[in-house]
């Protein structure tokens, strides 16, 4: 089956050990995680994981269900690149003397809409935010100039294009159903 690049968005309670539980599902299915980003989400107390991996539709569906089955995972969904806005960030550390010697470097940086965020006598740091391909293309060009000392790329972060905020909706529905059941049970008790 053809491999597709998937982005998983997972929301969980902020409990220790959850990252382990989530990555273990990938390990069991022998999937490599290409990138992983974990941070607080816009909902207080809830963590958001952005995970990318190459897989096929059938497998990714099972993976998502197995992740969602973890008690403290709130929701998990998978997306292809056309369903999300995504971003990555990269830092490029360049040797200042070589940058000064080669005017082409600044031009490359400007052409890629990247910015210098630090400059001192030994090195400078360039920051570039964007799509994976843009980041790699800047890397390739800088690499050719021979002035690069270090390079680091973040995991992907992504936000859905859909207008429905599934997690909020899910949590509200859960609370509502619980209140309803409680009320029903209380009525029965009377």
């Amino acid at each position, binding site marked *: 089956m053809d491999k597709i690049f998937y982005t998983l968005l997972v929301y969980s309670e902020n409990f220790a050990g959850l990252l382990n539980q989530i990555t273990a599902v990938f390990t069991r299915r022998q999937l490599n995680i290409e990138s992983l980003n974990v941070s607080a989400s816009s909902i207080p107390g809830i963590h958001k994981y952005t995970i990318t991996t190459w897989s096929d539709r059938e497998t990714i569906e099972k993976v998502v*269900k197995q992740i969602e*089955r973890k008690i403290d*995972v709130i929701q998990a969904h998978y997306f292809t690149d056309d369903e999300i806005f995504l971003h990555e960030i990269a830092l490029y550390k360049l040797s200042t003397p070589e940058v000064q010697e080669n005017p082409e470097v600044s031009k490359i940086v400007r052409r890629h809409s990247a910015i210098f965020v630090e400059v001192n006598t030994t090195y400078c740091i360039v920051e570039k935010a964007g799509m994976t391909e843009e980041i790699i293309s800047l890397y390739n060009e800088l690499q050719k100039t021979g002035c690069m000392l270090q390079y680091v790329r973040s995991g992907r972060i992504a936000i859905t294009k859909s207008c429905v905020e599934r997690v909020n909706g899910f949590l509200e529905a859960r609370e509502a159903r*619980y209140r309803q059941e409680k009320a029903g049970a209380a009525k029965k008790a009377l």
Partner: protein
Amino acid sequence: MKEKITGAEALMRSLEHEGVETLFGYPGGSIMPVYDALYDHRDTLNHILVRHEQCAAHAAQGYARVSGKVGVCLVTSGPGATNTITGIADAMMDSTPIVVIAGQVGAGFLGTDAFQEVDLVGVTQPITKWNYQIRRAEDVAWAVSRAFYIARSGRPGPVVLDFTKNAQTDTVDYEPKDVDFIRSYVPEPETDPVLLDEAARLIDSARKPLALVGQGVELGNAQEELKAFLEKANIPCGCTLLGLSAIPTAHPLNKGMLGMHGNLGPNIKTNECDVLIAIGMRFDDRVTGRLDAYAKQAKVIHLDIDPAEINKNVPVDIPVMGDCKKTLRLLTEKISPADHSEWIGSFREYETTEQTRVIEPEIHPAAGPLNMGEVVRAVSDATRNEAILVTDVGQNQMMAARYFQYGKPRSIVTSGGLGTMGFGLPAAIGATFARTGRPVCLFVGDGGIQMVLQELGTVMEQKAPVKIILLNNNFLGNVRQWQAMFFGHRYSFTPMLNPDYQQISAAYGIPSRRVMERAELAGAVREMLTSDGPFFLEACVVEEGNVMPMTTPGSSVDEMLLEC
């Protein structure tokens, strides 16, 4: 009302609050404060001292499977905790609700390789439904309540609580907690009414429907709902190993066991039916055989409580999510009465073939040594199919499952998913504490019993009324059968040198008897069943008996060998 007590005492109160009456355990350094607290609760919390922690977990499983309540075990940190791993993994595979409470070094020592420290939460993460480290006495009530709620709700499973020593000794203002809602956890998914309607329409249109009954029916206490459903639409069924007692063996719509050593009819008909209705079962590979040749002609309806089971192994046309007690009732309301007697009649040919070529020779042999199936059927008959069957793993398990007859729900306790040798004896001990008033009959092999022989000590001390039937074939029989069939009879390390089990039983003060002759079998079984308390019946059975029929590994479900 709040009151200052230790975390260990809070655990006792929390267990009582959950309605726990029985726990299986073994003490040690890191759990001593808890055992000290337990000393004052002996009237309400019946603690069974096992002889090895693995057996505490299996006993809790046996207790849970028969009683429908959560089984509890209590062990110390490090080796005590790791000894329970097999039982936890087994409970995970077979959806058995247990809570394992293990001691842990004090929070200040965590991560320092302190004496008997093991990262239990890390180790048990993939084999638990949930696990949690209690590091503060304040968390005890909440964690215990959450543990029991998770273990028993939805698709049940094992929960581990890793209880640090400081949390046991620190004091807390105790207040009981009742967790009955976790926002991230949906124990019972909602049933989609559209899919329910579609399922009903498909069932109504079926000419050759076949239902596959799994343990989910027992876990959901939906035995009556199942019967009503099958009877209304006149649908024959096959049962998985763990679902065997969800419907009585004698029910005319029950066509027997599915899977590798199941009955011919339901296996062959799986590849002939037009609609396959899977109820609370998970299409294990021991049931399906080769997946690409499994029920390809059929439309598949799958009733399950766990969304992760849908499409996992077999593509499903109509998933019906929810507790099958509810979904079966709703489906039964929607479907129309039907008559499939011709289809049902078509099973007969296979039943007759199996009866004459496999079953009769197994249970009524003309001569020669005792057969395993013969012993099983003799016990089943003598209990008028009232007993609870517990098995170990191997030929004894398959023979017991095949030849025992089930009259009541929750009558089979066996290690299905993990296939754990050594499960039987401790699980049978646990089953006796469910206090059903029904006899508990264990079938076990000479290999399996020696894995947990020390538990005869528990049987002795508790006078646990386990009827132990050892099917002694002087072999690791199941492996020997495979060696005979697939490895050219090269019996590599499967012959088993056995001790004198009569002397062993005597040493533990357990009445016993050895039978070798057919003529003595009925009398020996009667003696076993009429004696109060435990009994050890050693049946010396044919050494190279084989479990048949069989779908060999890699074959499809309808390719069953009748003899080898």
